């Protein structure tokens, strides 16, 4: 018996060690960082005093916090809405088989395959006020140039547009496979009952896709909340903080200047984690509710 238990533990040990080392330890360290007043000296030599929630109150009191939180919420919500609706429309479109549909669908995956630095830099080029192709196209239609990345009114819109483009393939793939799992009979039945295409989608496809949609949106939410590289490459959170999100702000505090502020940086990072956890809990609750009903 004891031997069997030991063997069981031996199998479990790698997983436990992995979880502790790669998730538990960093999480605890971040929490520890966020409740201490670190200077460069105390970071190197130890002995940073515990200041409780002072870093958090400082972060919340900072005027940047409101902007960053609002931008994060707008960025996430807008990205999800457009990624999901476009992804769903494309999934429905591709679920009717036609010639070349597989090839076209594969083409839609390109954004997913490109390294993010490539796509973000390309978007930054396209949105360039002077030499960008977007403004060139606007000029062709006789419209005025827009300062996509260098105007506080447009910077956030531009990074959202790029992020939507990057997120569409993920939504397309997951929703497409969700659609494939809906039995053909229900569509046949609704057709026999005289449902129009829209009615069939509205009352059959969409409700049956709900669990897949929920997973897609939740994963999308977690991915989008923490998007950093795209914003950093395209705008550095600027101009003047107009596209700062919690993720870029956390980076800016910790690594953006020559004098790192690890405490506040970790505090912002933890707020971000908390947001993701809350979203996850809401999802679990909604799913339980659905299963119960």
């Amino acid at each position, binding site marked *: 018996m004891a031997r069997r*238990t030991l063997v069981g533990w031996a199998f479990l040990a790698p997983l436990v060690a992995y979880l502790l080392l790669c998730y538990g330890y960093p999480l605890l360290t971040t929490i520890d960082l966020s409740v201490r007043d670190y200077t460069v000296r105390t970071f190197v030599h130890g002995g940073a005093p515990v200041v409780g929630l002072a870093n958090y109150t400082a972060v919340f009191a900072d005027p940047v916090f409101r902007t960053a939180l609002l931008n994060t919420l707008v960025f996430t919500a807008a990205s999800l809405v457009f990624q999901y609706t476009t992804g769903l429309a494309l999934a429905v479109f591709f679920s009717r088989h036609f010639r070349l549909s597989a090839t076209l669908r594969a083409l839609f995956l390109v954004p997913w395959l490109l390294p993010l630095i490539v796509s973000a830099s390309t978007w930054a080029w396209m949105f360039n006020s002077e030499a960008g192709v977007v403004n060139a196209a606007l000029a062709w239609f006789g419209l005025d140039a827009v300062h996509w990345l260098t105007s506080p009114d447009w910077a956030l819109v531009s990074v959202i547009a790029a992020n939507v483009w990057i997120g569409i393939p993920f939504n397309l793939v997951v929703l497409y496979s969700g659609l494939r799992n809906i039995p053909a009979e229900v569509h046949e039945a609704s057709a026999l009952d005289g449902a129009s295409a829209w009615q069939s989608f509205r009352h059959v496809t969409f409700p049956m896709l709900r669990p897949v949609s929920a997973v897609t949106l939740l994963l999308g939410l977690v991915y989008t909340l923490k998007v950093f590289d795209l914003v950093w490459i395209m705008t550095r959170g600027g101009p003047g903080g*107009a596209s700062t999100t919690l993720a870029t702000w956390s980076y800016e505090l910790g690594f953006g200047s020559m004098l790192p502020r690890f405490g506040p940086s970790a505090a912002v990072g933890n707020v971000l984690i908390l947001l993701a956890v809350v979203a996850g809990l809401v999802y679990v609750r909604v799913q339980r509710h659905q299963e119960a009903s």
Partner: protein
Amino acid sequence: MTRPPFSRRLTLALVAAGLCLTACSSAGDAGGDPAGPFAVWDPYPQFDGTSEWVKVIERCGAEAGVRVERQAYDTSDLTNKVLLAAQQGVAPNVLVVDNPVVSTLAEGGVLKANEDVGLDASAASPNLLAAGEVAGKAYGVPIGANTLALYYNKAVLAQAGVDPASLTDWASLDAALAKVVAAGKKGITFSAIGTEEGSFQFLPWFWGAGAELTDLASPRAVAAVELWKSWLDRRYAPNSVIGNTQTTSWQEFATGEYAFAENGTWQLGNAGELGFEYGVIPIPSRDGGVAPAPTGGEFVTVPVQGSADREATAAKIAGCLTGADTVLATDTALTYVSAIGSVREQQVAAKPELAVWVDAVQAAKGRTGDGLGTRYPRISQPLWTAVQEVLTGSKPASGALADAQRAAASAK
């Protein structure tokens, strides 16, 4: 089946994790090993093992009678790497690091003061050395310096009828920009991005107006931001400068459309490949004369390593790397202006077009100088934010700079 109590299971798991932790942390000791080779870290990943720089390091190690191991990092990565290494007690023995970081590392107790390890910095120019002074002690020796100046496109200026020699103050520069734009060309490109690069590029105008980093809201500071703003308003400068890095700004200049570009010594290599003739003038100050530009370039420093012997040997290597007879090759490879007067003379003798850069470096100021030290990053961030707010039109110059001064003053 009996199951062991939870505490035992937990202990087992923790032991497993602990074993793994010690296994990981024992790897990768750099400078901590008292008998090991001397670790030299630098931010020059462009130089590989066959380069002159690496040969210089090896020669200096051999002169000090030790084996050296060189490791190159990306410059933006190096500060964090060093901080982490120092925290783990595995800092390198010799560290080549960007000059504004020196005061941060010195205050953090990561570096040894020159006088404590016998590192001689007396050959280096005082205006360059100032960036590494903290509380009256000097840390490290500058390996060379780069700074900013104005590159100009000869054909564009000729077409607009502008004589570059006439550009000695802001008014003459403004007039030149007006002529260039009237001639259908583009005026000037620079980098006003919301990072340290933006402050770096703004400082020649800020200092050139007579403003000081201790008072961001002074009328002189306002004049400097308003100069940039007026260029955007009058379309002398493209709106893209707000997001430009110094690299993207250079790419704009490379199109051949622009009359001027504010950029650094490090572009001299690329400048040869522009495909059009270029010239360089120092950045003019508001009322005439050369504006003080911020110094760029690295310091060779000796980190704390717990053994006076090793620190003394490291200081020998650092002294050798920055010595007059070795540094010429290094500065030539880096396209830096030497920190040593006699070497600068050799550089200009070999390449007369460097004279303008030598002037610029001699007029230059360290960002962390004037006793600012680690206060500089706290000032620089509000400053670049204010510049961006003004250029995008979100705030008027006086308001943005007043806010910046408040933020800089309240930061610890």
